[in-house]
């Protein structure tokens, strides 16, 4: 036997981190969806006056509501994955690294949820 890995471990293909390509794949998926969303967001925002009334009316349009919610979820998922890699690369002290990773993950979750709730509140006119 030239390979010390079990046949099950090899067929699962998850490697020593037990994650396989999950992180890589999700970062690419969120990147892909963000290309059209970011372009629409950037140029859409530039093309409208940003006073309160116009902003609320725009967000209340169903297509904008849906687009913005997907944008926010994708942005914070993508940000979490990216910041995780940066922390893993540059923070070498184990405890600091673990605490930073937990904080970044929770912060991204918190901000994403606040964003979605804000959009829904505006869209549903509460």
């Amino acid at each position, binding site marked *: 036997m030239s390979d010390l890995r079990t046949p099950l471990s090899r067929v699962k293909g998850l490697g020593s981190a037990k994650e396989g390509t999950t992180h890589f794949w999700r970062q690419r998926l969120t990147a892909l969806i963000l290309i059209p969303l970011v372009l629409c967001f*950037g140029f859409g925002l530039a093309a409208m*006056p*940003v006073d309160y009334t116009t902003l609320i009316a725009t967000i209340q349009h169903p297509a904008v509501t849906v687009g913005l919610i997907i944008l926010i979820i994708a942005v914070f998922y993508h940000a979490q994955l990216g910041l995780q890699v940066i922390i893993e690369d540059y923070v070498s002290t184990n405890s600091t690294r673990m605490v930073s990773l937990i904080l970044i993950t929770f912060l991204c979750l918190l901000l994403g949820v606040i964003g979605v*709730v804000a959009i829904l509140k*505006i869209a549903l006119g509460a």
Partner: protein
Amino acid sequence: MKSQDNRPLSPHLQIYRLPFAAILSITHRATGVILSMAALSMIWVLAAAAGGAESYSSIYVHFSTWYGQIFLIGVTLSLYMHLCNGIRHLFWDTGLGFELETAAISAKAAIAAAIILTLATWLIAFNVG
């Protein structure tokens, strides 16, 4: 240990002239961090808008100030730089564009595209007012 003292060291990051591709690579990370903070302020603005006209206007007044405009233009440039360079990364992920000349051309194209997109966005924004 004495003999090791005279051994040549690998170049330190501070005195090593980074290749162009490496500068763009670290820029991708830097813009990523900048955009994470920009996303935070986007949520701030959204939450303020959800809070009503009064809380929104307390943030709205900062948009047209000089520091607000510098922040927004900086974020726009970071956003398009990260977007264009990210598309380069997606092509590399499919195995395309790894040749040195191609990578050098795509690097310049990404920077040019980011600047053009930024200018286009702000031309529209300034015309809308």
